[in-house]
């Protein structure tokens, strides 16, 4: 039963005669049809955009993934050759490893840091709005600017980070030139822009009922116990959202490693020993540098299925750890 059928779209009048009911019913149907028409009309820009720029390309890429296609000539059907080629491609495995490494450390650490920041921003202190603005500020700076600033900050020889590290007598890492340090460098840059996540957490923290805190305090619960038994369960729905969104963002990471590694236009550099080669970068290189559109499409579909499976697992597991207040 549709919403329109269950809920009257206009207030019905009890003063009308019983005999008017059939006409009233057909009137409602006409109104419902008209509303549906207008609804579709207003949504049409998005619908057209979705079909033209997302729906059709998705279908096209599924088709291309079974072809050899260089963008300029007609695609040639090759069956599952692109998918079987993946299995013998060492750069594919490298890209998968790098991407999962970043996601494995980036998602939990990023969320933990954002939550810690949100908890700090939730403390009632003087100048709190200013602190919130400062924390959020890095997220509104264009990524390309952020990365180019960090390229210099992380410069092994002249960078501020290494200067600071050496003053306390620690080893100066080759952040962008040693395969062991390039991924931590990407993570650091990512953490610099967790203000957006922190703000969402802050909104969730504001929703935690104050009376629960008061009651727990009366019962003698300290800050840790209050966080463990009151705050954390209350913010698990938001955490679920953040986990899914962050995981997808990390699995599709492109801009930061691309800008850190690129030395020139159309460059296929991916950092020392391909240590910054993320999955999305490899898709891009195959599509637009090597012009292997078929292979790139196969890569994209594998990533899509991976994301789908992981998201499904997370949502399934959420029944055990997410609390919706009921």
């Amino acid at each position, binding site marked *: 039963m549709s919403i329109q059928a269950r809920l009257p779209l206009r207030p019905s009048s009890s003063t009308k005669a019983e005999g008017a009911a059939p006409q009233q019913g057909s009137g409602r149907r006409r109104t419902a049809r008209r509303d549906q028409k207008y609804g579709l009309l207003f949504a049409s820009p998005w619908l057209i955009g979705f079909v033209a720029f997302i729906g059709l390309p998705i279908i096209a890429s599924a088709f291309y993934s079974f072809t050899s296609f260089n963008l300029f000539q007609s695609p040639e059907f090759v069956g599952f050759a692109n998918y079987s080629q993946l299995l013998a491609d060492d750069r594919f495995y490298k890209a998968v490893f790098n991407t999962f490494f970043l996601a494995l450390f980036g998602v939990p650490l990023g969320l933990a840091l954002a939550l810690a920041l949100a908890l700090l921003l939730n403390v009632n202190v003087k100048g709190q709005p200013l602190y919130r603005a400062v924390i959020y500020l890095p997220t509104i700076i264009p990524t390309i600017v952020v990365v180019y600033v960090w390229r210099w900050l992380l*410069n092994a*020889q002249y960078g501020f980070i290494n200067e600071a590290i050496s003053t306390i007598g620690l080893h100066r890492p080759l952040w*962008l030139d040693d395969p062991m340090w390039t991924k931590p460098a990407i993570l650091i840059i990512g953490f610099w822009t967790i203000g957006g996540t922190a703000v969402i957490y802050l909104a969730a923290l504001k929703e935690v009922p104050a009376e629960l805190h008061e009651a727990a305090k009366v019962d003698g619960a300290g800050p840790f116990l209050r966080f463990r038994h009151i705050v954390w369960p209350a913010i698990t729905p938001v955490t679920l959202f953040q986990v899914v969104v962050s995981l997808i963002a990390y699995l599709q990471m492109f801009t930061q490693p691309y800008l850190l590694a690129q030395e020139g*236009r*159309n460059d*296929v*550099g991916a950092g*020392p020993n391909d240590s910054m080669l993320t999955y999305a970068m490899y898709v891009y290189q195959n599509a637009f540098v*090597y*012009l292997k559109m078929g292979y790139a499409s196969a890569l994209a579909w594998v990533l899509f299925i991976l994301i789908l499976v992981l998201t499904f697992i997370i949502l399934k597991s959420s029944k055990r750890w997410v609390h919706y207040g009921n």
Partner: protein
Amino acid sequence: MSTTPKKLRYAGVAATAGLAVLLSGCASGNPAAGGKTEIVFSYLWGGAEGDALAELVDDFNESQDDIVVKGVSSPDVQKQLTQMSSSKGAFDISDNFGYATASLASKGVLEPLDEYIERDDYDLSDFIKPAMDQAVYDGKTYAIPLGVHTHQLMYNKTLLAEAGITEPPTTIEEWAEMIPKLTKKDEAGNITQLGYGQVDAPRSFVSLAFMMGGSFWGEGDEAPAPNNDGTQAALDFYYDTVIEPNGADRVQTFMSGFGELYSPEHPFYKGQIATHIDGANQVTMIEQLAPDLDYGVVPIPHPEAHPERAGTSEITNSTYFIPSNSKHKDEAWEFMKYLLDNEPLGNFTKAISNLPARQSLASDPIYSELPEQYQVFADSLSSENLASIPAVPWAAEYRADLKLELDKVNTGQSTPEEVLKALEERAGNYGK
């Protein structure tokens, strides 16, 4: 209501009139171009090089009654590719490196020029042969070279003098002996000056490998074969003189402080590296960006046991081409012929200190106005030891992989042997 059909009629008339104006523009040249046929020349050069090309465009336009060229500096290879993939072209003539010709031609996006060459009896014999060879794919000519590039050894005279070295090296052995003397470290062991810097690893490596007797192709130019004694010797040279004695970590730390290559921060201009291998365009770059640099250029040193290899270098080239989706191919060909005429070609290659692709221009007095270092590059064209990577569809991929693998030597991740083996395995998948 009678006003709606009336309005519709007016709208229809206006739309038809607008369409007619647009169509007339398409059919007989752009009215803004004064009735002449407008063609778009999209070039990858920017900055001073782009300005020099823009001057040629202006000169051509002044001399023309039928064609007007709109020059667009668009240094974006991706954009160039995208624009060539549509049914209607966004430009009518453009440029690229010679090694990209076979790759683009194999995808059907370049217009074969044979018909035009035959129709106008255009003489190609004046163009340098290795460069012309790269413009031919599957028996057809798809591009014409404008400039060629050879690589020579550039050295900082001041740094050599400080190290007590009076003459630049002529043999690999002399050079290998000099590199440690030209490398400086501070008290903590950090490198402050490197005797030999590979700022563009593939470029240096390919020329050095040819010098060591190496090759990148198997018999009959049919398949890539990068793993041989010559390529091994070239990698060993860098590994033994730079990486091994200083440590990959310290070399990487030092190189991480290098500035942008096309800026005054270039490590050679700043005295961070004493010797390196590069092309003739550096002569103009140095004149503009580091006019006080005291430097010299000599041919890449040859092995003492192989004096016959003197003058060896990789030769690459830059080309003009017409995309197959050009709307005005005849006009684009006319403009290409103008660009390749001796005077404009001489003016442009001189402005960017590139070696002209025409042999008849090689000794033209126009180039005597360039700094004396240019002459070493000019002389290199007469060498019989110039070599190039053959024109094959996957040449660009091969170059990209060279860079990726060479990085592993620089970072100490792989030995030269491991790098060449990996490169060989990777090359085995080309075209699949």
